[in-house]
């Protein structure tokens, strides 16, 4: 932690740094270091370990001349540290290199996928959060009613389902065997983005929403029950505050604070969850791109996508922590 404490020092000279500012600075610095280590691991793992990228592309019976040429093209003949530096500085300056599978520039290949996946993730996050919070709040208000029991048991069952089972179930029900209301695959014409055909988004988003809602629901329900039984709600009741006002002004905001962290964790989950769901629906996002790249052993693409997913993970983690910190007065003091 000695390294990460450094950014907070200049502030200390001017007076007491705000404890939250220090904490945020620390988290950001730690996140940055984590990401740097992650990039080194991704690089080492894919570039150096068994044989090398040139072998992976050309196969075992590779012609030595072509092997050497490709090795030079990929800078495999230089030292590992040099290779890593070339790769990392290339990434930072926007020169991402080319795909090994078809020689296209990497950015042109990945950019539309990134946009499509972002649409998928944020749409899912928004819809899932709203549904989860609403259902959780209602279940808590009607604790031990039939609504509460049914939603609680259903969500417990659904939390454990693999995404592709949910996806296949939706396809069977809505797109093939039972009815044909929606398209079973979300193939986008090349050059178009996901929002141009909202119909194609319904099933992938629906699948991911079903997967994340139970977690948000369960957290929201528990937090809401705790809030409704708290002293300040009791106090408000004794003062004669109307019940709807107690729910909206006192219980709900206090229950949402801890739920935000679970919502954040679900965004983290989506970084991995998109892989399977995009594959099922043939949705052209980075998850599907990763699967294709692994199938083709297209190492530059694998490196880049894994790094993007890890970066998303680290950034969302920091964001979640900071928001949760700001939303819960207790925790601001506790640390």
């Amino acid at each position, binding site marked *: 932690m000695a390294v990460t404490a450094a950014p907070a020092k200049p502030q200390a000279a001017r007076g007491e740094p705000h404890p939250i500012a220090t904490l945020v600075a620390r988290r950001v610095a730690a996140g940055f270091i984590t990401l740097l280590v992650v990039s080194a691991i991704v690089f080492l793992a894919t570039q150096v370990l068994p044989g090398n990228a040139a072998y992976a592309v050309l196969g075992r019976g590779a012609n030595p001349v072509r092997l050497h040429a490709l090795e030079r093209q990929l800078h495999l003949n230089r030292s590992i540290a040099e290779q890593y530096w070339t790769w990392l500085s290339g990434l930072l300056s926007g020169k991402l290199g080319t795909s090994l599978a078809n020689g296209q520039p990497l950015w042109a290949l990945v950019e539309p996928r990134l946009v499509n996946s972002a649409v998928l993730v944020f749409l899912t996050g928004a819809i899932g959060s709203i549904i989860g919070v609403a259902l959780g709040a209602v279940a808590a208000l009607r604790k031990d009613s039939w609504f509460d029991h049914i939603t609680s048991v259903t969500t417990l069952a659904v939390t*454990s389902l*693999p995404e592709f089972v949910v996806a296949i*179930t939706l396809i069977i029900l809505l797109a*093939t*065997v039972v009815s044909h209301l929606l398209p079973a695959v979300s193939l986008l014409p090349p050059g178009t983005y996901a929002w141009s055909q909202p119909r194609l988004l319904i099933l992938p988003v629906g699948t991911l929403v079903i997967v994340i809602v139970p977690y948000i629901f369960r957290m929201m329900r*528990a937090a809401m029950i705790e809030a409704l039984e708290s002293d300040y709600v009791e106090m408000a009741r004794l003062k004669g505050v109307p019940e709807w006002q107690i729910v909206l002004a006192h219980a709900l905001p206090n229950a949402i604070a801890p739920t935000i962290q679970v919502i954040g964790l679900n965004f983290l989950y989506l970084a991995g969850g998109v892989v*399977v769901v995009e594959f099922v629906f043939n949705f052209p996002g980075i998850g599907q791109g990763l699967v294709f790249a692994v199938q083709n052993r297209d190492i530059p693409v694998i490196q880049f996508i*894994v790094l993007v997913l890890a970066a998303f993970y680290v950034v969302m983690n920091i964001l979640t922590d900071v928001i949760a910190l700001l939303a819960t007065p207790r925790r601001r003091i506790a640390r």
Partner: protein
Amino acid sequence: MAVEASSVPAPAQAKDQGAARHPWLRVLSTAARTPRGAVGLALASLIVLVAIIGPFVSPGSPDALATVTFVKPSGQFPLGSDFLGRDVLSRVLNGGWELLLMAAAATAFGIIVGTAAGVSAAYRRGRADGFIMRTVDVILAFPQLVFALLLVSILGPRLWLIVIAVGLSHAPQVARVTRSATLDVTERDFVKVAELQGMRSSKVMIREILPNLISPLMVEAGLRLTYSIVIMAGLSFLGFGQQPPAANWGLMINENRIGLQLNPWAVIVPAALIALLTIGTNTFTDAVARVTLGVDRLPEEAVLTDDLGLGRTT
């Protein structure tokens, strides 16, 4: 932990060591007698039974090309045929045990590595703690499925590699849970006494600390097992697990979904088996958590106290 401390009664089995020889067995049997636990255990056992006994009662060979493709269910082929004309029932009966074995092995590996890391981080403190927990942060930055895909992309789809990859991706969460539990235990008198008696630190960790981690570990193992099944089946579904022509529930779903209109049972049955299995293990774990934690606490809720992560990152 501090917030909840007053409402969480200390796990009963940690105190009365003389009462039962295997207190964790008592926890399991108590959990199995709750409605939730009974349903979960019954479901999970049923599917495990299908997977284990399946190969012995399979009516035909899972690999024989018995008929034409995507035949509807009939007397001869109760679940119809798959995309190559193989008997779906035989493939279903043969396609579970390897998946289960790999999931169990990955869980065991993750629990062992994670516990070793978590306990030694908490017990040794200082630099070891810092190093282990930073490593945990780094591994956590990879979504679990992506971590496995990264390893598979390097070495190819080898089964032992997948077990290690999935196990390793569990280890950070397990390490976090055991670390925080160990921090509590090390403050207790019996650990101090053992230290004063000059017991070696490795012995203190195994003899004195580990037995007190059983209840959080049971819940954790249940969660990890569920996630292992989900990830293993997911990898097979993506085509990076067992390779064709192997019979595997995850792989079957992917192979046969092109024929959903013709013979949906080739997809529905393996999907239902995986779903019932994960619902079973998860529901039983939930029951165990209720028994050991004593209150209606959710695994997700513990996130707030840094005990547990969501972990469900496939």
